[in-house]
């Protein structure tokens, strides 16, 4: 077995398995070894399910031998630890669910299982997906494979680090305000947040129901297309999933981009954007021009309001969604409660971390009598304005482009004392969530790190946003770029 098998893309692994170049058990073992070796440094996993993985891989090999199985048969994958997995604990990165084993599979988990994928374990994440640096996890921060002193981004920091370090070719992830795209950018991998309603939320532990959307972190857009074909689709268990056909995302990957109208988001190229990041984005745009695309600047005047609107709507929904963690039926329960109120207070007080508590309190406040209109209702109106801005822009252009984040990965601990600075990391990504739009982040080069690790190269992400249900177009646009460039093939030195 060649030493670089782990560097293969998911598509290449599928092909190799089909061609019997290697078996599922072989590559499962390979990735499990890499995972074990990575844990002390990266801490990207909360659970590693080696035994089950090898069993599943064995079954996959029997299917492959008999030419049975699905599109992903035998491919090792990882799930973000907020997708419920029957029999394997689902912690959401929280002490609250440290002991929680779901009795059912999330729809995404069930679909990928049905496609033949082999689960290696569950990825670390910010607690209940609340965070932009993976530092709020009860299980400790995940470290960036490019430099362990830096954050991988969040909340899907584990998922991004896993793919960046080639510990698996695919990690599922979720994006409420940028939680797929921001860590994908900071780790130099490809992240896709689909249209709200494209992928079932059933079995995803909810943070903010109207914003949460499951998606993928992979090395390439082609891989994301392969996985989305399996993951997307209407689910009768999720009333907000949309009943419309799932296109063949792979078939349209190579469509030419000549005449593609790309809108540059004026509001994204602002003073907050690191000049080095901006240079990498401009380079990427030049590649698109070479491919025949037209660039034009578009303005979304209400977009600067997205962060404040988000930090009203998301905490409001979170305060209600997390009410079920009360120590009564599942999850953490305090020792020897004196009475009901004591049970609630201590179970929740002990079970939730600081950032989760901050958001529950903010959310409770903005929904309370006398404040609802001024905060929640107004935020919903802002949300409609932002959605209208996007709709207007998509009347003029096919896709929007800009940076995914203002800066490359920052140091662990650098922003933990100031929540607002941390929240501003999502300034470019939140708009797509508020409007329910599909968006991607793809690697578009490297920049020099500042501060600790200065001089080191760090990945930069290009963000691509499209109209509702334009995933096929986004993947096509991303794939064509990846055919022209090799930024997506870079693997951090320590994880070669």
């Amino acid at each position, binding site marked *: 077995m060649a030493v670089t098998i782990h560097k293969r893309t998911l598509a290449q692994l599928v092909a190799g398995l089909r061609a019997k170049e290697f078996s599922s058990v072989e590559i499962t073992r390979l990735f499990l070894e890499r995972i074990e070796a990575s844990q002390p440094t990266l801490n990207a996993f909360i659970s590693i399910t080696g035994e089950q993985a090898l069993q599943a891989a064995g079954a996959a090999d029997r299917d492959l031998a008999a030419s049975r199985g699905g599109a992903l048969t035998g491919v090792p994958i990882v799930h973000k630890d907020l997708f419920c997995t029957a029999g394997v604990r689902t912690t959401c990165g929280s002490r609250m669910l440290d002991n929680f084993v779901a009795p059912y599979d999330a729809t995404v988990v069930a679909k990928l299982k049905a496609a033949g994928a082999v689960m290696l374990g569950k990825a670390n994440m910010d607690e209940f997906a609340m965070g932009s640096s993976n530092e709020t996890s009860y299980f400790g921060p995940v470290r960036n494979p490019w430099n362990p002193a830096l954050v991988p981004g969040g909340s899907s920091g584990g998922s991004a680090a896993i793919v960046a370090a080639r510990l698996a070719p695919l990690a599922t992830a979720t994006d409420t305000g940028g939680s797929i795209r921001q860590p994908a950018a900071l780790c130099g991998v490809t992240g896709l947040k689909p249209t709200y309603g494209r992928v079932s939320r059933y079995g995803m532990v909810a943070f903010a129901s109207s914003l949460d959307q499951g998606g993928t972190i992979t090395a390439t857009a082609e891989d994301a297309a392969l996985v989305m074909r399996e993951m997307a689709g209407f689910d009768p268990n999720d009333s907000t999933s949309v009943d419309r056909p799932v296109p063949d995302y792979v078939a349209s990957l190579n469509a030419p981009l000549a005449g593609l109208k790309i809108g540059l988001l004026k509001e994204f190229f602002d003073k907050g954007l690191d000049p080095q990041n901006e240079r990498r984005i401009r380079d990427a745009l030049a590649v698109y021009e070479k491919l025949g695309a037209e660039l034009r600047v578009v303005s979304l005047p209400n977009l600067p309001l997205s962060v404040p609107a988000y930090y009203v709507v998301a905490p409001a929904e979170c305060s209600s969604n997390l009410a079920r963690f009360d120590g*009564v039926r599942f999850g953490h329960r305090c020792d020897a409660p004196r009475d009901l109120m004591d049970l*609630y207070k201590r179970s929740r007080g002990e079970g939730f971390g600081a950032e989760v508590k901050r958001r529950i309190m903010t959310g409770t406040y903005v929904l309370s009598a006398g404040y609802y209109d001024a905060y929640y209702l107004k935020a919903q109106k802002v949300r409609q304005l932002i959605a209208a801005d996007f709709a207007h822009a998509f009347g003029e252009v096919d896709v929007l482009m800009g940076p995914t984040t203002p800066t490359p990965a920052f140091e662990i601990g650098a922003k933990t004392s100031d929540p607002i600075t941390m929240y501003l990391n999502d300034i470019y990504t939140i708009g797509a969530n508020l409007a329910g739009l599909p968006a991607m982040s793809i690697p578009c080069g490297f920049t020099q790190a500042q501060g600790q690790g200065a001089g080191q190269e760090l990945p930069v992400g290009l963000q691509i946003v499209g109209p509702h249900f334009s995933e096929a177009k986004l993947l096509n646009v991303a794939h064509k770029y990846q055919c022209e460039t090799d930024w997506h093939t870079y693997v951090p030195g320590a994880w070669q």
Partner: protein
Amino acid sequence: MSSSSEWETVIGLEIHAQLATKSKIFSGSSIAYGAPPNTQANLVDLGYPGVLPVLNAQAVQMAVKFGLAIGARIAAHSVFARKNYFYPDLPKGYQISQYELPIVAGGSLEVVLDDGSRKRVGITRAHLEEDAGKSLHEGLPGFSGVSGIDLNRAGTPLVEIVSEPEMRSAKEAVAYMKKVHTLVRYLEICDGNMQEGSFRCDANVSVRRVGQHKFGTRAEIKNLNSFRFVEKAINFEVERQIEILESGGKVVQETRLYDPDKGETRSMRSKEEANDYRYFPDPDLLPVELDEAFIAGVRSTLPELPDQKAERFSSQYGLSAYDAGVLTASRELASYYEEVVREVPGEPKLAANWVMGELAAALNKEGLEIGGGKLPASRLAGLLKRIEDKTISGKIAKEVFEAMWASGANADAIIEEKGLKQITDSSAIERAIDEVMAKNPGQLAEYRSGKDKLFGFFVGQVMKATQGKANPAQLNDLLKKKLAG
């Protein structure tokens, strides 16, 4: 002492009717009553992490049916909202209900009061919501000093029917509640079983000086599950509030509970202690969008409604408004009555009297429901036919009815067996009259000398001699002639 004539009572009711769907409002669990604890609670009902609600279309149809039956507006766009509060029997930490945009708004019902007058009560809104589970604080076998939670009821579909504060006495409130009870059972959207909690209400009660425009401060009495309790609780509460006000005090806005054992209401929590429910639209559920075609489809399933039926009974069968009202109080009663009339078409009034009289009394005595098979309509019709064709008198019919009730035999068999057939042979009756006259010469003489009152005595004696079988009308005629000499 309170002088209640100076005070006016203001009552509004919030009625919770459990919808007779097959499954829960947001999950596939059964809603059948009486299953062992927590055997009808799936992951959705338990509020497990990651699960999502899916709206039961049957519950929507039923709410729309109710809305159409009370002449209300059916919302083209209604929204489910979360009502947030913590309680162990509320698994998600919020109840899914409807708040700003309910599915039904602005209807009314007409009630007939004891004095026969009619009153229209406005219905502000009716909205869909899920029920909570049950907390069991005592009597848990095998446990002591702990509380148990049964989530079988959690997620059961309810329609909450909110009236305008337009009722002015406990009796009016009960009449209105009974009317709603009748209606939901007619519509077959609720079984109306009050013991099992399928139909219950909260009563908002306040008093104000007669002539005063502004409403007084109200108390909300929670969870009343019988008509009798509603009446008693309201009456107690009215007295309590009047006493407070007359002694110079102030009524506190609060939630109260009715204690049926003590016959009083007591404070549960005040306004200050009340929860801030932090309602907001439930992002897990899409707004309910209903088009004209859907509403028309539901309209086509509406049965003849109680008021329409009562009106038809009055005009078609010549019944009084009161009788028509009683006979249409339930769909089962009305159809029983109509079945009887179908077989004895000439005697609708007689049929009404028997159904509301002897039959109702007999059912009542044994605590049975009409239509339960104890005395099928055709059997009762068989008895009425014998009254109609004068085979037996009304009085004998009561005796036959009792025998039918006891044995289940039909009227003809009992009449035959007991020899109860009416004597219509004039000569036989005359013979009996002659014998009675011969046996009572004194009374005969007195009668003939002008003491008319003795006529009754002779009727009685002849009836006795014929074991009550003499046809009363014939007997009257013949006796008059004979006594006159």
